[in-house]
């Protein structure tokens, strides 16, 4: 088995904060690996370590067989990085941006032109190719940034929260672009805070928390571990929250979660449709007024709760701020 990334016991401290605290992670060739975790879990620090931008304090990290610590130049030849920020030059056109990066990869002028043109085509930027990037929309800029990471035809593509801050439509467009790449055989490592993103794009998901991997598997495996769906009820009056929580908890034999500010009770249910129906019946028979009731896929908080036994706090930590 060849691995595109092999990390063992990675540690990285920023002052008192351990951004990576003994992270083990392997990503196989020929697939998309998603690193899922809340803000500050160490996702960005890990991607930066793979991209040779951060040198871990301890541990070993092999990228496409090259030691990232000892031979970073070899790693840089095989990776392409697209970050949370659209790191393109706004005062250059889309084409100029791509040709510059291709040239920096050592491509001849002619090859750079050809690969820039191919990437523009692939990302649907042909019409905008000769406009300055500062006239692009947020989604277009993000696609151009993705293009800049592709133009050197990397074996491994690193995408750090590629859709953070994008509107839903641009997000879907970017997903399509990433899927097309994978079909072409590029290995991808992406980080995300969104479970559905990992679900849509990745065949292998690693959940990390406090700089350590806490679970790994296919999206289906992980979902089976947390089981089923979530029924969420929004009550009209805050005073009914404990009643509803107690009731739903008893039916499904799990603890229901209460979110007071939004007057919501949520509970994990096994199986599909009948969970919603039975919840509705019980709530009705208790005479509780509700504003809304719905069944949905578990979100990252619930995945966390199921796997770590505690909610995923969105703590602001070093990996996001210090490493920026």
């Amino acid at each position, binding site marked *: 088995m060849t691995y595109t990334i092999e990390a063992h016991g990675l540690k990285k401290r920023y002052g008192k904060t351990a951004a990576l605290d003994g992270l083990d992670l392997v990503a196989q060739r020929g697939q998309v690996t998603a690193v899922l975790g809340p803000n500050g879990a160490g996702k960005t620090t890990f991607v930066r370590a793979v991209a040779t931008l951060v040198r871990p304090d301890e541990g070993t990290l092999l990228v496409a067989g090259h030691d990232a610590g000892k031979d970073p130049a070899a790693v840089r*030849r095989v990776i392409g990085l697209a970050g949370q920020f659209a790191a393109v*030059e706004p005062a250059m056109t889309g084409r100029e941006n791509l040709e510059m990066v291709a040239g920096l990869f*050592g491509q001849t002028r002619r090859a*750079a032109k050809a690969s820039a043109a*191919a990437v523009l085509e692939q990302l649907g930027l042909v019409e905008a190719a000769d406009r300055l990037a500062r006239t692009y929309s947020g989604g277009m800029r993000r696609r151009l940034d993705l293009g800049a990471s592709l133009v050197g035809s990397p074996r491994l593509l690193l995408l750090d929260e590629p859709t953070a801050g994008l509107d839903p439509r641009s997000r879907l467009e970017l997903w399509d672009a990433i899927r097309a790449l994978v079909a*072409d055989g590029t290995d991808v490592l992406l980080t995300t805070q969104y479970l559905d993103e990992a679900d849509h794009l990745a065949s292998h998901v690693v959940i990390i928390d406090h700089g350590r991997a806490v679970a790994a598997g296919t999206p289906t495996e992980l979902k089976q571990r947390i089981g089923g769906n979530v029924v969420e009820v929004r009550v009209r009056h805050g005073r009914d929250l404990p009643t509803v929580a107690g009731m739903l908890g008893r039916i499904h034999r799990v603890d229901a979660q209460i979110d007071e500010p939004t007057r919501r009770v949520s509970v994990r249910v096994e199986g599909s449709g009948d969970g919603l129906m039975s919840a509705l019946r019980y709530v009705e028979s208790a005479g509780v007024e509700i504003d809304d009731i719905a069944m949905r896929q578990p979100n990252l908080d619930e995945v966390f709760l199921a796997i770590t036994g505690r909610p995923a706090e969105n703590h602001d930590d070093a990996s996001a701020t210090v490493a920026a």
Partner: protein
Amino acid sequence: MTTISSALEQPAAANTGGQSGLLKSTLKVTRRALLRYVRTPQLIVLATIQMSLFFLIYRYMFGGAIHIAGMPYVDYLVPGFIATGVLFMGIGTATAMAEDLEGGFIDRLRSLPIPRSSVLAARVLADAALVAWSTAFTAAIAFAVGFRLHGSALDGLAAFGLVIVFGFAFEWLFITMGLFAGNAQAAQGMGMIVFPLAFVSSAYVPVSTMPGWLQVFAKHQPLTYMVDAVRSLTLGPHAQALLGHPSSYFVTRALLWAAAIIAVTVPIAVARYRRG
């Protein structure tokens, strides 16, 4: 998708050894920095207008009240104004560096198979070009409002070259600031160091008119040596009487300062850049 995958596979072979040379990559990154200036004309036009206005204010408003023995104030002012102009442009260097870092552009470049020094080298080159342009422009206005070279044309050219060298040295100081600042606002704030350097110097008025305790700093700081070196080259025979030393005295000291600034800031900047 077939056309794309073949096009993407092809350049892999064209990635010659995967390492772009120092010179080639430096020039490519420099081109980007220059394009940014050229294609954001508001920046340059505004800066140029502002600089010209200040120059005319010094020349015609304050200038009338300042008397320098043995020469018109414009001949005294121009070397000082040009040298401080180089410093004020450094604030832009620090800001641009911090912006590139903050916006992720430096991350992109650092993840590419290019020598890491080419990114800093490109910033220095681009901003040195800006310094040269701005100095030439200021000199042109200066000649239009009565400034004259009293030494040889060769001395004039040497003065111009000296300003570029000095600008180059100070670029490194500002790049270092930009690397440490973390964001553009902080970089701009750190750039305020320019004010005491520019005003507590011989740039606009003779140091001898300042309070004694200020003179100690004003006499020995790098900008004063630089300004007086340029003066000694442009004032010709008047220089010795005004400055009390031959031009070699000031030129060597100005160059020593430039070398010292480079020797201290370059290793710090490079180390900081490598650490990321």
